[in-house]
């Protein structure tokens, strides 16, 4: 089945005629149509229009889908028409309803029930009153949820997995009728055959003790069944509680992670502040060297100046004075100091007096050696740079903390709430365990009582001769056998089909997950709870197996995709709001998967869900792009227009 076009007339936000050309070319892999629409523009309306055309909607809902503006103007008609190709033939289905003019604000006055017309190449086909069955033959309503699915509704597979997984599997396996038959037989047996049989036993048993035992067992069994029913209800309630708190914890898991991250930042900020204090203290010491640092260039210049007289002459004078004073025999050059030499030496003696400039120069020489102003400047500069960097770090951390606080919405009780929900979640788990144990015990006791009653029945039957009792016994027995056979068939059928179903779901899951090396696949347990199996054999609940954003959504999508494949139908896939909050790898995997889920895929998305990068992933698969938007001057009315055509 491939849609060629969808025409919407006075349905929802679509006043008058809107035609959506859904032509694709699967042979060229151009099988995806993108439809973009902001919130409340008519995206979901389009989704429900297709559902209405294919399988109808309850009449109360149909009235709500009539375009109120058209209805306020005059009598008219609302319809959705789908032209499609199936098994090399072209068909048209048109579902319509007439309405009377209705003032705004009032419930729209529709006329009769919706009318369904089916054409083959524009010629009405003759199927009598079985038109809906004709459509169901191509795409059964039960299976349609795996072709027309709302991304938001995927959540239900995460929130109440067991109930929804169970129903979905039962629908897809087609065992609903068998289940109905089993339930009907159960009712017939209990309400009619058992009652009739028990009545005859009571009437014809001569042994008072056996009669008493029989009645007691009857009462015990009835009471046991009631108690079991009560426990079953309590168990369901506990499961619902557990799911409720798990959902709350999921919600708070995000906040909890944000809280943890914020706490980490705050700890880091403390350490950074301590480091800053240390650097500032260090800087306050190093700033004390600034006088010397600034003098540095001047001191270097002073150091280069020469004393007056030059320092070598001063040195010679001092050395000569020292030699003469201490009566050196030899000069420094080892020459013997005689009178001649003494005369020469004495000419070297200068009348030295310490001048201020010489004092300053020598003082500067000593200071440069001891202080090293250049090195001090380097040290100071390094500390200033470290301070600058740490201030930047602090700003960044502060910004992160502010952002996280805004996200957490200043909920100071998050930690306490999480604790409270965790406690309640644990309590629900304990209750479930307790109810399951009690239920098991009750079932065993009930089983014993039923067996005892059966034995007693057999004993009574052999000792009592009564035609009515015999017939009642036979009817009861036949009913039980049929019911058991159906039960066994359902179970057997499920056991045979389950591995195949798991294989489909696993294959899609491993394709979508952001860590396929880690996971073996998905498994459906006997109680319809799904588990993720890791390579090391560990089995984890689907809602906690991964911290990645959207991990649960991936499991639910794999579930739906697997069931889609299991139906072995080829029908268009229409996805409303496909992408929730997903990490980048899940996101890319999901986009790529959607383009290959079927021969025709129509994705209805909000502009914020898919950016240019996302669209680029599937650009080579696009057949066309469309946009739904309000018409100018009328915020309540939408129009669908083609953006691009790739065919």
């Amino acid at each position, binding site marked *: 089945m491939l849609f060629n076009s969808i025409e919407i007339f006075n349905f929802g936000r679509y006043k008058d005629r809107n035609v959506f050309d859904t032509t694709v070319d699967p042979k060229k892999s151009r099988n995806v149509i993108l439809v973009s629409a902001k919130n409340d523009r008519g995206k979901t309306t389009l989704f429900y229009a297709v559902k209405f055309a294919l399988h109808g909607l309850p009449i109360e809902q149909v009235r709500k889908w009539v375009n109120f503006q058209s209805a306020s103007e005059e009598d008219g008609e609302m319809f959705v028409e789908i032209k499609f190709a199936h098994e090399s033939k072209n068909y048209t289905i048109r579902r319509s309803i007439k309405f009377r003019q209705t003032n705004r604000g009032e419930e729209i006055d529709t006329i009769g029930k919706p009318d369904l017309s089916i054409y083959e190449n524009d010629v009405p086909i003759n199927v009598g009153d079985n038109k809906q069955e004709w459509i169901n033959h191509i795409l059964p309503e039960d299976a349609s949820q795996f072709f027309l699915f709302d991304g938001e509704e995927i959540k239900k597979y995460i929130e109440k997995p067991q109930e929804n997984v169970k129903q979905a599997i039962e629908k897809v396996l087609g065992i609903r009728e068998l289940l109905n038959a089993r339930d009907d037989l159960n009712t017939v047996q209990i309400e009619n055959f058992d009652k009739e049989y028990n009545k005859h036993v009571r009437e014809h048993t001569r042994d008072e003790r056996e009669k008493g035992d029989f009645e007691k067992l009857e009462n015990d069994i009835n009471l046991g069944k009631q108690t079991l029913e009560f426990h079953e209800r309590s168990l369901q309630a506990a499961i619902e509680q557990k799911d409720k708190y798990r959902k709350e914890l999921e919600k708070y898991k995000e906040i909890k992670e944000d809280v943890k991250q914020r706490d980490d930042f705050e700890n880091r900020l403390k350490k950074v502040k301590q480091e800053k204090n240390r650097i*500032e*203290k260090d*800087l*306050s*010491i190093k*700033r*004390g*060297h*600034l*006088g*010397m*640092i*600034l*003098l*540095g*260039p*001047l*001191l270097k*210049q*002073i150091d280069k*100046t*020469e*004393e*007056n007289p030059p320092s070598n002459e001063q040195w010679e004078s001092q050395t000569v004075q020292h030699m003469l004073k201490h009566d050196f025999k030899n000069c420094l050059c080892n020459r013997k100091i005689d009178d001649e030499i003494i005369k020469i030496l004495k000419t070297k003696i200068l009348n030295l007096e*310490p001048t*201020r*400039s*010489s*004092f*300053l*120069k020598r*003082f*500067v020489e000593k*200071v440069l050696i*001891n*202080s090293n102003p250049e090195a001090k*400047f380097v040290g*100071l*500069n390094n500390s*200033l740079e470290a301070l600058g960097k740490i201030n930047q770090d602090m700003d960044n951390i502060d910004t992160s903390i502010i952002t996280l606080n805004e996200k957490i919405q200043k909920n100071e009780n998050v930690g306490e709430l999480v604790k409270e929900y965790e406690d309640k979640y644990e309590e629900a788990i304990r209750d479930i365990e307790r109810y399951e144990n009690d239920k098991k015990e009750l079932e065993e006791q009930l089983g014993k009582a039923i067996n005892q009653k059966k034995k007693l029945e057999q004993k009574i039957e052999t000792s009592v001769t009564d035609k009515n009792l015999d017939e009642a016994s036979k009817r009861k027995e036949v009913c039980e056998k049929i019911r058991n056979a159906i039960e066994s068939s359902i179970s057997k059928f499920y056991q045979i089909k389950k591995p195949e179903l798991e294989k489909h779901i696993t294959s899609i899951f491993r394709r979508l997950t952001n860590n396929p090396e880690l996971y073996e696949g998905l498994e459906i347990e006997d109680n319809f709870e799904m588990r993720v199996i890791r390579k090391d054999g560990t089995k984890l609940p689907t809602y906690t197996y991964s911290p990645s954003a959207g991990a649960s959504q991936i499991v639910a999508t794999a579930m739906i995709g697997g069931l889609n494949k299991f139906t072995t139908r080829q029908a268009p896939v229409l996805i409303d709001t496909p992408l929730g909050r997903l990490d980048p790898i899940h996101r890319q995997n999901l986009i790529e998967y959607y383009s290959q889920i079927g021969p025709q895929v129509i994705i209805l998305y909000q502009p914020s869900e898919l950016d240019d990068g996302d669209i680029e992933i599937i650009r080579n698969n696009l057949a066309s792009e469309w946009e739904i938007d309000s018409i100018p001057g009328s915020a309540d009315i939408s129009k669908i227009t083609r953006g691009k055509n790739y065919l």
Partner: protein
Amino acid sequence: MIQRISEKPLQLRSALKYVYDEFVDEKKLFQTNYSLFSFALVYGLMKSKRSDKTLNSDFIKINTIGDDQIKDVIDIVYQLLDDSDKEEGTWQEMLHIADGGLLELKEIYDKNKDFRIQNIVSEATTIWNDKIRDLKNINL
């Protein structure tokens, strides 16, 4: 014999106590008043700054300063300014130069929340080259 002025019990004084309070006590940018004084003194000398305000606040006597390098700075500046042992006069002049330097440093800090030390140090070589001839006791 030429004595070091830093060995003398000369009073370190200023007209700008509020600036010392801000930079040393409040903001803790400097460990001591005298370390700030040495920076302001050299800066004031380098930039030819001088304040005429009355020196009305006393800090410590410079011979009690515990940091030899600060004392060295004071001694060097004194030698650059004095060539005839007018000790008290030169010392007073140094105090006014320090206050002049400190006023400008406060302006820089108020504007930038920073002393712009890298800028000051980078221009020091050029300034000293021009100023060296005006300084005393340098045998050029």
